[in-house]
């Protein structure tokens, strides 16, 4: 369970996040949706500590993240898997080494065990025969999938996905969606997904937070969407043809 309370984040004059509070449950796919530039990525980066909010509280299973020192944060981060909007694969390493990276860094597994786990993770995202290719030599969608494989390699307790299926074809998008849903429920992960893809929201969304211009306008579940009565939110939904 991750909880954020009264998060404020500014860049210079620009007030990007305004008093955002939300909670994200374990074993559920928690969606953050909203228009481009609304502050979704910034919120996610605040939650994992890449950005420091001016005010606010962030707790990971009751552990106060903001007040932790570097080493305590590090321990929490080993439980976090994150898929970046731009994938952030290491381009000096091939696909296999990318996925193996956290395993080599933080486990004492033998090389065989590591490769076995790598192949398992890659097969879960429907990738095969790309182990030795470098990130610059695979497609955008394949990169996304490698990014997910890397994020789940260490079986995280918290999974952050920034636009997991932007730039993917509809079929692969659904595969990724169900993959995320599956591992979320199987390992009781607290999964947070940023997206503008309403399809995946309706497929796998459990909890939804709608962010508009840096503020949280609505929070609820799928069933509550139609009678949310929030104008901004409804027009956002209508624009996405649902």
């Amino acid at each position, binding site marked *: 369970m991750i909880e954020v309370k009264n998060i404020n984040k500014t860049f210079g004059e620009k007030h990007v996040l305004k008093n955002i509070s939300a909670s994200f449950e374990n074993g559920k796919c928690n969606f953050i949706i909203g228009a481009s530039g609304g502050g979704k990525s910034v919120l996610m980066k605040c939650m994992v500590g*890449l950005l420091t909010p001016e005010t606010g509280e962030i707790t990971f299973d009751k552990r106060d993240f903001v007040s932790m020192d570097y080493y305590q944060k590090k321990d929490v*981060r*080993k439980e*976090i898997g994150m898929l*970046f909007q731009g994938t952030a694969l290491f*381009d000096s390493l091939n696909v296999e080494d990318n996925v193996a990276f956290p395993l080599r*860094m933080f486990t004492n597994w033998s090389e065989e065990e590591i490769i076995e786990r790598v192949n398992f993770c890659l097969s879960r995202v429907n990738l095969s025969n790309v182990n030795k290719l470098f990130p610059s030599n695979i497609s955008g969608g394949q990169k996304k999938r490698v990014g997910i494989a890397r994020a789940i390699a260490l079986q995280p307790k918290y999974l952050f996905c920034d636009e997991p299926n932007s730039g993917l074809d509809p079929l692969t998008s659904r595969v990724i969606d169900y993959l995320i849903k599956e591992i979320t429920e199987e390992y009781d992960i607290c999964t947070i997904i940023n997206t503008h893809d309403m399809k995946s929201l309706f497929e796998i969304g459990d909890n939804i937070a709608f962010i508009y211009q840096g503020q949280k306008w609505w929070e609820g579940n799928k069933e509550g969407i139609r009678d949310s009565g929030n104008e901004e939110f409804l027009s956002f939904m209508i624009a996405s043809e649902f």
Partner: protein
Amino acid sequence: MRFFQHFGGYLLFLSTVFSKPEKWKILWKQIIIEANNIGVGSFNIISLISGFTGAVSTIQIGYQLVSGLVPEYLIGRIVRDSNILEFSPTITCLVLAGKVGSNISSEIGTMKVTEQVDALEIMGVNSSSYVALAKIIAGFFTIPALVVYAMMLSLVGGAISGHLSGIISVEYFVKGLRSDFEAYSVIFCMVKAFTFAFLITSVSSYQGYRTEGGALEVGESSTKAVVYSCMAIIFFDYIISQLMLFR
């Protein structure tokens, strides 16, 4: 003011770089790769430059000492001293600041702007140490090795050009090289080489690491990396010479 800000930032950066690595084995592997990039990768250009520096210095000194009042072998001696004391370490390192420095800072800068550094942080890896430590250690050993090589080659180049231009025979040149040789000058040279090596890799890593933005900023910081490493080299060249040659 800005200078102190940067200097403080640089020291803070170094203090995070020099912390215990997550896995020694991974660090070791990185060091080997970087040593290959920095050392072996710069071998050709250093050969070329040091050979010609030696050759030119013989001709220049020969040109200035044509009077006939000083014994010929002195040319060899002056070539030796100027190359060991100044040209080999300083010119080699200035060239490497351009080649290695821009390389390091654009590599780290690219990792920074494509969020690869963030990805490391999220995993719980000390990102500054992961991206820079291996480069600094590898540079610290390979760059002085290149300087030693440059030192030898510059003397060979000097002998060859002296012979070809008829300024001084190889025999006299070698006599010059051996007259009043003090090992202290080599120690001086190595102190400079190790210092410069550290400056090049650490300043460039710092510049790369503080890149923010996009491809444009990566270019900018690699230019800065070269400029600042060169300035640091020249400055420390002066300090070390003052401290070690005139005590």
